[in-house]
């Protein structure tokens, strides 16, 4: 590990929750304005998390706390690997591991809504996993390496070679960010019954840990989206930042426009996009090589 990657990991660990909270705060204000409301304060997501950690530490069983903390650890760990410039496959597997711990936490409480939430989260994983793996393969075909450190040193921004992958990745980003129409397992809106199933039985600090993990995960996913725009040229970092901001705005827009879909539509649509956008791009990339 070089000094450079060490610094970027430390920055990731410290700044991620702050940046993700600010993004989330802006998102909530933008959403409110789209609905003709004033909306909460910019720092509201930060207040929410601080509150959750100050609440009473109750849980249905002991294993639930451990599983949620493992979820948080692996979410942070996968981001740390990414920002250290290491293998992107390892990042994705660690991220899957994090999700599995959250699902296990939901199953462990043996409650109806948590169980439905966990099942829906599994369906969401089925929907987005093929595309994330294909994206990693796409990076390999374009650059010849799975290492993030090598991917960011490509001659041209990879969006040029991988527009299909980017389209597919944007699609599954909506699932990862838990935005409507794909917020089946747990949602930022409609804190009711089934839609909040996955985190339904997490209370106080345990829920805080799951929220914290989500913040780290969001920064990781935005980092991966930025990877499509970064090249050896230093100015490309600005383009990547612009792309990420536009992407966030588009997700707020989509969140407000579309109603929640059923799980069948989620699976169908994400697999179709994966197959046609990602698959076609994959074929072209392998042929051109």
């Amino acid at each position: 590990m070089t000094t450079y990657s060490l610094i970027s990991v430390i920055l990731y660990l410290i700044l991620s929750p702050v940046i993700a909270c600010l993004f989330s705060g802006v998102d909530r204000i933008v959403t409110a304005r789209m609905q003709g409301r004033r909306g909460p304060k910019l720092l509201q997501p930060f207040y929410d998390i601080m509150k959750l950690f100050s609440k009473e530490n109750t849980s249905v069983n002991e294993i639930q706390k451990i599983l949620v903390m493992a979820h948080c650890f692996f979410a942070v760990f996968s981001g740390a690997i990414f920002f250290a410039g290491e293998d992107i496959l390892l990042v994705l597997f660690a991220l899957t591991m994090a999700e599995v711990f959250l699902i296990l936490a939901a199953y462990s409480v043996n409650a109806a809504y948590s169980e439905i939430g966990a099942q829906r989260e599994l369906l969401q994983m089925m929907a987005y996993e093929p595309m994330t793996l294909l994206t990693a393969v796409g990076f390999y075909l374009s650059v010849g390496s799975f290492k993030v450190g090598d991917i960011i040193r490509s001659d041209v921004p990879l969006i040029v070679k991988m527009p299909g992958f980017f389209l597919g990745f944007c699609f599954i980003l909506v699932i990862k960010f838990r935005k409507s129409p794909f917020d089946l397992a747990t949602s930022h809106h409609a804190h009711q019954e089934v839609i909040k199933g996955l985190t339904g039985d997490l209370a106080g600090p345990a829920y805080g840990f799951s929220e914290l993990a989500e913040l780290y995960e969001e920064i990781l996913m935005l980092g991966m989206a930025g990877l499509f725009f970064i090249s050896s040229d230093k100015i490309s970092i600005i383009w990547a930042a612009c792309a990420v901001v536009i992407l966030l705005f588009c997700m707020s827009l989509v969140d407000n426009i579309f109603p929640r879909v059923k799980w069948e539509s989620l699976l169908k649509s994400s697999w179709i996009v994966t197959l046609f956008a990602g698959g076609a791009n994959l074929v072209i990339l392998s042929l051109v090589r």
Partner: protein
Amino acid sequence: MRISKSPWLLHYDGSSCNGCDIEVLATTAPRFDIERFGIINTGNPRHADIFLCTGGVNSQNQDVVRQIYDQMPDPKVVLACGICACDGGIFKDCYNILGGTDTVIPVDVYVPGCAVRPEALIDGVVKALKILDEKNEKMKRGEYRSLTSSEYAAKINGDVKEAGDSEGEEKTDA
């Protein structure tokens, strides 16, 4: 940070005529935009800080009210919304009605009205927030733990001496 910056609400309908529920829902709808105070209308007692209870408590739903209250992590406050939740209201003498919310769980703020107006509700929630902050401060110092519903039942059914105990609820009229 004050806990009142992020109060999450939970609404439960006891046995009201639904008038208060409609008003509670109106309050949480975009017109009054309570999200500007950081308030979220959650459907989950485990995530909630403020319990809005409308309607009187009857013999069938008393256990539900107790369970919701017990599942909420400390610090928490309870609002009795509307006159039925305050003391049973027009249904008070019905054979199945036990009385207001405070017959089964400790109530912190009583918001009267038939039906309770959104303005009164918001006023009540703002009063509840102060109590929530006080409770949080006491909890941090290890001086406070809210009564469970069974402890509360023992208290109101049992000896009157304990009723003046400082561990209990603070009553405020909105």
